């Protein structure tokens, strides 16, 4: 296969934002996750936990709670507003001020007709959910102290509200408080500190479960208002609770980073009266667990340490399968790094800024395993702060490095960069009005056109030149899908543009004729990356279930290679990888080579070599290395996998055939997080 010079880049100091809250929609199997910077991410649990949508955040939008109502997603936050999201255009659809101060919690009734929000001023406000909007109905009787947590009774007749030092049960009809459950403060020194009920659950049998700042999980009888059972689970706070759909299990997240499960079971065999028993403890987080979701088969948790953890419940899934494996999602499922292959530049996308770096140069030659002396260090050319309060949702750098574009939900900006002795960056004013709200940006390989995916899966084509920026066309398809285009890819010869949307559709447009060329047969897993081969014009697509397809744009059919791959099947080791392929590049020197990467490896697929047999070793580089050259041919197969670099944000091949590898070690991220509440010490 050969030697590669690798630029190993570790200066992309990307820090994901902490997970604040989450909501799971069991009908659609979608998980909505809100981050501390106000971004909302949608994960599809039916499709390998693929992060299919990201709604960028906004300064000042501190989301405290999320709530699904059917397909609609609502959030409420400390800015006092309730927001509904437009999941097709990936932006807030509208916001409504509740006029009750910061909102701590939001909850809908089981019919999906009413929303209740708990406000700082002590009111519980009921909103009617109408089509396209929500409307304020009334306040429940006001109490002193803020409403921290809310939960509707499944019958929608009562609402339990967690406050400071107590839980109040309201009659949803009359608005009167029917019961007050007093919550004990912590003993000892913190006796004077009021206890905050961070989370409540309200079950069909009128059992109320609460988690509070004194570290207790308490089970109450909501009918009599009596305390049934107290579990002291932590010295710190119980921040969040989540009840399973069948109400047989409750999980609680603590500041210590643990998740504790309680189950409604008989404590002894042959006994029929069930009770809530503490069963399992999961430790997958180093910091506060502030968001939890209890799916049918798994515990989903997230918090300060920014990782989303899906921990399958082993009594609900088949053991030793891919389904039973713990999954940690640490990085976004899309590329935050742009690479100008001709110019050797890297573009790093942060929510609030862009950084443009020039790669360094090495001196001399070396043999495999060597580290070459760096003659010129990498250099940060430009740091571009975004304007306005909306966060950056996408960015693009042209292959020549001369153009840079980024977009927020409200705005697109295009810059011309000139490299002479000094670097100058000029904003292109007067962008066509069609370029307003886009989800994805991409330059043509000759940098003459900019493609932007817009509303209803359409793509806007804009011509860019020194003089002007001119709107050319809007490319539309005919399937009626309104889902956003999350992947854009233009062919090297400038003839083709491929788009993929979250309905799993891949459309091919002919840019010469400016019209739809064809649609790739829809596969039932979402494409995670697509790329068009520079010479053959075959489209390579990799999907969330790790399948790889090659589609000939000219013949409008899957290629022989693709058919062979599907017939023979991919190795289970390949299919069981738990991070998606997020980027594909090609080797201009060897047209058989497809270079792709996920978080933990990069792989060069050699299309001229046979596929590995189903019983073959997929990671066979060490074996091949140990063999004499003459025997390697017999042992080698199409998948050349390199795991020397980990936590990959980008792998790309520059024009001079050197690889660029952008790593973001998780340890570096962990070291920049605030100290956890409880440091583990020896023998404590």
């Amino acid at each position: 296969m050969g030697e590669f010079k690798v630029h190993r880049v570790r200066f992309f100091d990307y820090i994901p934002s902490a997970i604040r809250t989450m909501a799971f929609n069991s009908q659609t199997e979608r998980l909505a996750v809100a981050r501390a910077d106000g971004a909302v991410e949608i994960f599809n649990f039916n499709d390998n936990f693929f992060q299919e949508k990201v709604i960028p955040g906004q300064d000042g939008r501190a989301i405290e709670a999320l709530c699904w109502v059917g397909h609609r997603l609502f959030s409420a936050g400390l800015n006092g507003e309730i927001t509904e999201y437009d999941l097709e255009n990936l932006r807030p659809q509208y916001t409504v001020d509740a006029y009750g101060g910061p909102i701590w919690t939001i909850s809908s009734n089981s019919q999906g007709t009413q929303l209740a929000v708990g406000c700082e001023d002590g009111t519980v406000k009921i909103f009617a959910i109408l089509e396209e909007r929500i409307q304020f109905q009334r306040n429940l009787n006001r109490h002193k102290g803020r409403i921290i947590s809310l939960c509707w009774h499944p019958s929608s007749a009562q609402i339990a509200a967690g406050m400071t030092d107590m839980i109040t049960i309201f009659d949803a009809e009359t608005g009167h408080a029917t019961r007050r459950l007093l919550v004990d403060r912590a003993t000892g020194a913190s006796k004077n500190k009021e206890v905050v009920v961070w989370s409540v659950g309200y079950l069909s049998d009128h059992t109320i479960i609460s988690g509070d700042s004194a570290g207790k999980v308490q089970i109450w009888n909501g009918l009599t208002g009596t305390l049934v059972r107290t579990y002291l689970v932590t010295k710190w706070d119980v921040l969040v609770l989540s009840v399973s759909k069948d109400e047989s299990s409750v999980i609680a997240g603590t500041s210590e980073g643990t998740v504790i499960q309680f189950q409604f079971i008989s404590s002894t065999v042959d006994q029929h009266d069930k009770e809530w028993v503490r069963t399992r403890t999961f430790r997958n987080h180093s910091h506060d667990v502030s968001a939890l979701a209890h799916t049918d088969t798994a515990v989903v948790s997230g918090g300060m340490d920014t990782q989303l953890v899906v921990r399958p419940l082993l009594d609900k899934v088949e053991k030793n399968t891919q389904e039973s494996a713990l999954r940690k999602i640490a990085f976004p499922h899309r590329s935050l790094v742009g690479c100008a292959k001709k110019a050797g530049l890297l573009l790093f996308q942060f929510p609030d800024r862009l950084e443009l770096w020039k790669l360094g140069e090495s001196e001399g030659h070396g043999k495999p395993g060597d580290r070459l002396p760096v003659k010129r260090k990498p250099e940060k050319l430009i740091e571009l702060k975004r304007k306005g309060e909306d966060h950056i949702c996408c960015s693009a750098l042209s292959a020549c490095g001369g153009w840079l574009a980024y977009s927020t939900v409200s705005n697109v900006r295009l810059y011309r960069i000139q490299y002479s002795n000094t670097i100058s960056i000029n904003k292109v004013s007067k962008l066509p009005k069609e370029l307003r709200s886009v989800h994805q940006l991409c330059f043509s390989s000759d940098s003459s056109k900019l493609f932007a995916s817009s509303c209803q899966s359409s793509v806007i084509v804009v011509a860019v030149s020194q003089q002007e920026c001119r709107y050319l066309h809007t490319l539309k398809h005919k399937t009626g899908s309104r889902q956003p285009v999350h992947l854009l890819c233009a062919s090297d010869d400038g003839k083709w543009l491929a788009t993929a949307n979250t309905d799993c559709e891949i459309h091919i447009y002919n840019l010469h004729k400016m019209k739809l060329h064809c649609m790739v047969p829809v596969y039932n897993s979402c494409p995670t990356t697509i790329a068009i081969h520079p010479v053959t014009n075959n489209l390579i697509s990799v999907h969330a279930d790790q399948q790889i397809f090659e589609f000939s744009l000219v013949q409008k059919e899957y290629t022989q290679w693709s058919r062979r791959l599907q017939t023979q099947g991919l190795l289970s080791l390949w299919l069981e990888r738990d991070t998606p392929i997020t980027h594909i590049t090609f080797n201009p020197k060897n047209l058989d080579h497809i270079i792709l990467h996920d978080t933990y490896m990069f792989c060069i697929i050699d299309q001229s070599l046979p596929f590995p047999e189903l019983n073959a070793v997929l990671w066979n580089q060490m074996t091949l290395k140990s063999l004499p050259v003459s025997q390697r041919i017999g042992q080698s197969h199409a998948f050349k996998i390199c795991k020397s670099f980990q936590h990959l944000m980008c792998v790309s091949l520059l024009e001079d055939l050197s690889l660029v590898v952008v790593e973001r070690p998780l340890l570096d991220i962990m070291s920049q997080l605030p100290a956890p509440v409880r440091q583990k010490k020896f023998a404590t």
Partner: protein
Amino acid sequence: KSIVSVFHDILLDKAFKATVSSDVWKVHCTHGGEPVVLFQRGAVRLLDSLLAAPQQPIEEVLAQEEAIRWSAIIVTETQQFIIITTEQKGEHFLYLQRLNPNSVQRYRLEREEPGLSPLSFSATYRDKHICLLYLYPNGHVYQSVLSVRGLGTEEGVQALPLPRSLLLGLPVGDGQLEAASAMALDEAHVAVVGVPHPSTQICSNSFELCLHHLCVDFIVSLIQLWSYSNKVFIPHGKTLSIIPFECPKSSLASALGKLKHTKTEGELNQTCHTLTPNSVPSWNNILHGEKAQPSKSAETRRTVSWISVFANSEFVIVHTVTAPVEEIQKEVEGFLTRAEFQDLQPSVGQLALTLVSRSLADPAFYSSSTLAQLVHTRCLCHSVCPDLVLLALEKKDYFLCQLCLQFFPDIPEAVTCACLKTRAEDVKKASAPSQLICPVGLHKAVLINEILQTPYSDTFLLPHLKDLSSQHVVLFLQYLQFLYLKYSQDAFPQMEGFRSPSLSQIMDWVCLLLDAHFTVLVMTPEAKGLLLNLHSFVKSQVRLVSELGKIEGSLQELHKMKAKESIGQYSIEIIELF
């Protein structure tokens, strides 16, 4: 067609002649066996049966294009064997032909480097096995062992692979041997002779002396080698070289090599020149002084020793019996400079033995420097010359004593103790007895230091230690305590390659002495302070060790952390994919 002629022992002109139906390769005859006729195509007949019917049909054993290269006869207690090696298209085969009843087994020789054919074969019979030795032009001598029992019944159609083991790799330099011959002399000795490549000296080990004059005539392509009655015969041209040899029984010490010397000579010499603090007398300083003797590198010591040549040394040995000390010294010096290191072992042993026995017989005769020189060759050990150390002790030649202690790997514990007992008079009468003043004189100290480093076994040493008087023990313990304190001081440099006893050796000896004499020491008033001191040492050691044990885990973690390489923000690396 060949004619077989049989001559009468005495009357050579009378002969019985018979014409046989096939070409004869060789008639083999050996003491205690019947003559055997080997035909060119591999068939074998007893001479008697052949002569009885000369025209009998002779079968072809060998394949087409297969030709005999070498043959030999082996006579065992009950059987006669003919061994034939053949060549066929570059491959070599071995036939083991048993006579009466006849059966044959064919073996295939493993291939050496392409194009290399064995230069010589030799077969010997030992312990119900035939031992085949063969030499290749690249200097490799292989041995294959064939069992004479269990010879296959199927007539040698199938060639079995013949397992071999590399016995020797002779240095041949860049070229290859043109002609050479190898022969096993006994289990451990092999004689090799060959035409030297211009740039190399083959058989340099034992045959070097011979080769110097043999080289001149070695133009013949065939080199043969016989041995009979402890002599090797080498015909060349019109002359026959006869070399007497002796296969010395290898001693355990020489077989094991020197156990205690892990430091190489080079290091030792280096440290000689560095100025070392004299707080603990250094073996090096006193033994060698400033004039460190350049000695030959010892790393090429071999357990397979070579036959030794006495042609030269015999003269020296004869000389040593009568000549005066100075003359002997000259002779030995000359001999040592002439001889190659590997040749020395037997002759040096003989020289030392002669010198020692003469010294013992004649009290006036003693040649300290010559003996020291011999010990310095490192070819001597205690088992070869058991009287040497005791002689040195008797003559109060402590220098030689120390030298023996340093270089002999096999000094018995009894002799070690004997050394320990000497020179009790060398006690320093310290005016103010302090623990930091060395309780013994310098020479004694050096001797004790050397003894401390001598290998020993507890069980054998203890009974001899019990023989020491209590004064001796107290003195010795005082010295050990002094050493211990020296070592405990931070300032004491524990130099690499510095020949001094290690702390654990000192502690082991303290324990041994206390074990052997504890009851006596407890009753001895002057030992009381010493014992109390030692007790406090032990206590402090235990405390230190327990403290170290506590942080051991942390230290190990530190060690692990260092191994990790920091990568930094940016690097350019080369990787290779296969």
